[in-house]
């Protein structure tokens, strides 16, 4: 029994350390250069009297042992830093308000208003959706902009490497006709995934989920489609142009509708957007259209990341 446990532990340990049997395609970190062998030639008899100065000796010693010592120092330094940070933060945590207590400073009048009046002020059943898309919508607009910024930056850095010969990356996915199993699964799975993504997006104000989670689910359907039928077939309905147009348009609708709401709110004008009845699909004012916009942006962007990383083009 004990031996079995030991062998299991050994296997796990080897796996963690990366010593176990490896698949062929596995990626290894570049090997550190081996310690320099003693390349110094033996001194001939005449030069024996030449005393190496201290500096020369030090340089020789450094050449031979420097890398090793440097790596040891490096690890020691990292462990030390880690310990210092952790101990400092642990000392801080020990003084923080207790976990899960209802009289903590964070549970104040702000939270009470969100919970008690959020449903008629925003019209959303999911308090978190009302919070991020109505009370604190500016943050969420910033968040979508972060995603947009990352999307255009990645497009700039990795884009167009399929067409130009300058870069070495080859296409990873070679379209194969004989992958019937994957295609069979994809035919069944893609509609289900799409439907589930849509449900999560559309019910964002009623239940857990919302635009971001739903968009991520939608993007997996696109990724599966690309894997089963090749990137070319996805490119028929979703290419770089459509990617840019759809994300920009969705973000634009988001910005304009939320801008209208900010403007009317700050100037105390009457907003024409109805709140609806809490609990219905068509309720919660702007939250439903905003969730759909966010879902579109996220689905497009995440699929775009996938395509850019694997092919260098959308």
């Amino acid at each position: 029994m004990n031996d079995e446990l030991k062998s299991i532990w050994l296997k796990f340990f080897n796996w963690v350390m990366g010593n176990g049997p490896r698949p062929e395609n596995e990626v290894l970190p570049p090997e550190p250069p081996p310690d320099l062998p003693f390349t110094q030639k033996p001194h001939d008899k005449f030069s024996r009297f030449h005393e190496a100065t201290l500096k020369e000796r030090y340089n020789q010693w450094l050449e031979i042992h420097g890398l090793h010592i440097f790596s040891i120092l490096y690890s020691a330094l990292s462990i030390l830093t880690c310990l210092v940070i952790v101990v400092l933060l642990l000392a801080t945590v020990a003084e923080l308000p207790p976990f899960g207590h209802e009289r903590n400073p964070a549970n104040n009048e702000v939270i009470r208003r969100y919970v008690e009046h959020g449903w008629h002020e925003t019209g959303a059943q999911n308090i978190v959706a009302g919070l991020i898309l109505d009370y604190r919508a500016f943050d969420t607009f910033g968040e979508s902009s972060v995603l947009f910024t990352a999307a255009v930056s990645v497009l700039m850095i990795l884009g167009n490497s399929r067409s130009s010969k300058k870069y070495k990356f080859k296409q990873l996915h070679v379209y194969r006709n004989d992958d019937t199993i994957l295609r069979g699964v994809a035919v069944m799975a893609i509609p289900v995934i799409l439907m589930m993504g849509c449900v999560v997006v559309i019910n964002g104000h009623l239940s857990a989920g919302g635009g971001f989670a739903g968009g991520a689910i939608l993007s997996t359907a696109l990724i599966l489609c690309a894997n089963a039928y090749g990137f070319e077939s996805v490119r028929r309905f979703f290419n770089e142009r459509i990617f840019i147009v759809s994300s920009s348009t969705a973000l634009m609708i988001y910005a304009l509708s939320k801008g209208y709401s900010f403007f009317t709110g700050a100037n105390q004008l009457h907003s024409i957007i109805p709140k609806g009845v809490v609990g219905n699909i068509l309720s919660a004012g702007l939250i439903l259209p905003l969730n759909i916009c966010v879902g579109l942006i996220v689905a497009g962007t995440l699929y775009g990341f996938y395509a850019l990383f694997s092919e260098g083009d959308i």
Partner: protein
Amino acid sequence: MAIIEWLLLLFLIVCAISVSITKSLLNSVIIFMSYSLVMAVIWVLLRSPDLAITEAAVGAGVTSVLFFLALRKVGQLEHKKDEEEKE
């Protein structure tokens, strides 16, 4: 219930440490993926279903896929280089 919480938190810490010490990049990405999944479970325990769904879809899904793709690309180049050297 409390024991499960402790076990999950301990698992997270073990994952984080093994990510830092493992030598194989593929292993560290796989460990990170399981870390994200356990994090999603912890968020369910902390009564935040929105976060759990998002983390499961994004942390364990999309982020790990991006890491795998990056590794694959690096590995592909490595193989290509080997071939060139053989030739």
